[in-house]
């Protein structure tokens, strides 16, 4: 029997072939132990077949389990409503990016985005419409992030966060303003909003070259403060945490 390099049981099959050839050998035919030898050979063949089945079963269970584990990972990282990354995934991503940017001495930017008067929207149109609004805004945010590596997450409620790698304050401002404009362009009616006739968002952004080992949370807080400033300034706009230094 020619050896098959792709059969993991080729060694066993070769042994069996030799055993069976031996049992057919003329010199062996008068041996009183021949029947016993044949019985052992066929018992070995049966056990080998079982082992082959066993391995097939185990492989299939392992594949099913690893597919299951993959799905669990996805479920634990994705926000079910908006399909954006969830807060847990954001935290992991942010920590990694913080470390990488600290190592490379590059600026990392964070945007925090919040729907203006979302509670009023929910009260006026109901929670199903509220969910549809969250999905539409999430989609607009995602589509406003044009570079690979840009990352959007649902932070909770009607708050979203974007993490922009290798991005300084002025580029962060551009992206934040684009998000504000793109959400407004959806023209989702929000009659009860004191800001505009349609759904709007406010955004705060902060960018820094990381120095502290664990400053990611501080940067997030800074973006949150900026968001607060944008709300105070009348909403439907993007602001930095502190006024950008004026270029002379």
């Amino acid at each position, binding site marked *: 029997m020619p050896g098959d390099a792709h059969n993991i049981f080729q060694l066993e099959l070769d042994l069996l072939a030799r055993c069976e050839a031996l049992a057919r050998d003329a010199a062996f035919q008068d041996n009183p132990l021949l029947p016993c030898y044949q019985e052992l050979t066929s018992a070995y063949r049966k056990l080998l077949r079982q082992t082959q089945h066993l391995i*097939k079963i185990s492989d*299939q*269970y392992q594949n099913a389990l690893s597919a299951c584990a993959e799905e669990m990972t996805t479920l634990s990282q994705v926000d079910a409503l908006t399909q954006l990354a969830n807060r847990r995934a954001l935290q992991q991503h942010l920590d990694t990016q913080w470390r990488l940017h600290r190592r490379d001495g590059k600026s990392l930017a964070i945007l925090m985005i919040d729907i203006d008067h979302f509670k009023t929207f929910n009260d006026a149109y109901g929670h199903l419409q509220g969910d549809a609004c969250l999905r539409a805004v999430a989609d607009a945010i995602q589509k406003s992030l044009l570079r690979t590596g840009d990352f959007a997450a649902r932070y909770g409620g009607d708050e979203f966060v974007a993490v922009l790698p290798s991005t300084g304050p002025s580029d962060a401002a551009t992206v934040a303003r684009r998000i504000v404009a793109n959400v407004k362009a959806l023209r989702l009616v929000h009659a009860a909003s004191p800001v505009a006739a349609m759904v709007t968002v406010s955004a705060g952004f902060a960018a820094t070259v990381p120095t502290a080992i664990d400053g990611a949370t501080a940067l997030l807080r800074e973006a949150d403060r900026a968001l607060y400033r944008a709300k105070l300034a009348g909403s439907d706009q993007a602001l930095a945490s502190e006024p950008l230094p004026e270029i002379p």
Partner: protein
Amino acid sequence: MDRLTIAPTKSTPDIRFDPDSGQLSMRGESFPENAAKFYAPLFAAIDAFAANPAAPALCVDLEMIYLNSSSSKIFFNLFDQLEKIAAAGHPVTVNWRYSAENDTAQTCGEEFQEDANHVVFNLIEID
């Protein structure tokens, strides 16, 4: 004869064997710490059952969702034991039940079925 009842746990199946009616059922998942030790009472009970010439036909109902490798090997041993009983002239039926969504349980049953010559081995899809 004594019934054998083993309550299910997170890692072991529910096992019920009534030698008087010849009904054996196992349901659940199987990944015990020591598979040989866990299944030893079942093998002993089946041996005792087979030793009784007045024993009724044996009907084995299985609904196993997950088997680890050791348990799969145990099931091959179990089916060997059942084959011997059936080969000796005692009727044995195995019903391997699997959920339509559980492809692996189906494959598993098909693999076991291949070795059945004297045992009547039925694959039964359940909802």
